[in-house]
């Protein structure tokens, strides 16, 4: 399975040094967006393993930060023309955004970008089929969104574990007496993981009654999480339509 990269480059015809390098990589599928809103609408609809922003340091980092806020689990790198100032480099590090300076030899840059691609962990996995007697609720995310099923379970004061399986990977949300106690998706935990799962529109979910997490990473009431995440989703859609 190819590694899918979305590259934000506002001049992909004439400023194509980085694009050329990605194109020559075996097993990498590139998709180009010219504007941030185009990139966001593509990210809403499709699954990508990594996101690369090309451009002047300040602008590229600003665009990458926007995307980071809306897609917390996405691997992001900024390829900038000049070495960024200390402040920008620190901001990028805090947002888990890789910074790559493009003003170096083709081979060196090629090596760095190659390492970035290799570092993108493939979390793909197909949704497991079949019914396990432990599952008290099973369904498809394209029929019921994660928000809907969590709302239903929280209102009925359920305790147990939701497992979500999609091509983006697997994630788990633990409920206790109708409140979200713990959520995990890849390296994300807590509210960031809940936010990520909220966006999933494809995949399957399973609920196992009575499984309680000892770890607690979420301490806000479900209603607050729901409102915040729906608002965030609206903001993402707004960004895509700018």
């Amino acid at each position, binding site marked *: 399975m190819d590694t899918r990269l979305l590259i934000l480059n506002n001049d*992909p*015809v*004439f400023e*194509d040094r980085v*694009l*050329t390098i990605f*194109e*020559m990589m*075996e097993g990498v599928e*590139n998709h*180009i967006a*010219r504007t941030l809103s185009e990139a966001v609408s593509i990210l809403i609809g499709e699954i990508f393993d990594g996101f690369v922003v090309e451009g002047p340091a300040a602008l590229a980092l600003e665009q990458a930060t926007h995307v980071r806020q809306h897609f917390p689990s996405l691997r992001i790198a900024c390829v900038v023309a000049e070495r960024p100032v200390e402040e920008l480099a620190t901001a990028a590090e805090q947002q888990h955004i890789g910074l790559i300076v493009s003003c170096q030899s083709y081979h060196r840059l090629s090596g760095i970008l190659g390492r970035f691609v290799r570092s993108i962990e493939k979390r793909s996995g197909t949704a497991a089929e079949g019914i396990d007697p432990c599952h008290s609720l099973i369904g498809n995310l394209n029929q019921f969104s994660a928000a809907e099923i969590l709302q239903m379970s929280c209102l009925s004061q359920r305790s147990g574990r939701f497992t979500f399986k999609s091509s983006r990977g697997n994630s788990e949300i633990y409920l206790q007496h109708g409140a979200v106690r713990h959520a995990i998706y890849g390296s994300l935990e807590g509210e960031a993981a809940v936010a990520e799962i909220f966006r999933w529109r494809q995949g399957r979910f399973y609920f196992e009654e009575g499984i309680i997490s000892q770890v607690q990473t979420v301490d806000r009431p479900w209603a607050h999480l729901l409102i915040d995440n729906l608002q965030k989703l609206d903001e993402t859609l707004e960004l895509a339509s700018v």
Partner: protein
Amino acid sequence: MRDRDLEKKLRLIELQLESWKKLHDLITYGLDKAKPIVSSEQERQFTELRGYLLQETEYILRELGVLAELSGKTMNVLQRSVSIRAVRELPNDEVRRLETEWNAVFTKLGVVRGQLKARRKQLAGQTALTYHLGRIFRRAAAAH
């Protein structure tokens, strides 16, 4: 194996076709009299799209080796479609000409894209060694 020149041509043609299709969407919207409102946002998108096409068309068509064949038609489409509102006000014969020329460019670019993809598929089954050996033998055969 992958060929750098081929990959570049494929990228350029994909970008050109993408812009060309978006232009068509906006022209079609403009021509649909049932849609009475053309928003300033749509006009902005249209101008931005024309900007990309005007800037990139000549370079891309030259790289693809179809400049002589398509340059005139492409420029005719871009010059006639000044804005969505202007497209709406074009007389019928001008609209027909616009559509014919848009289609001629789209068809040719589609055919070239197919050829490039076929070449990529052919190359994907080869290693760098077999590719270069093949070239050497072909050159030697041509010399005799």
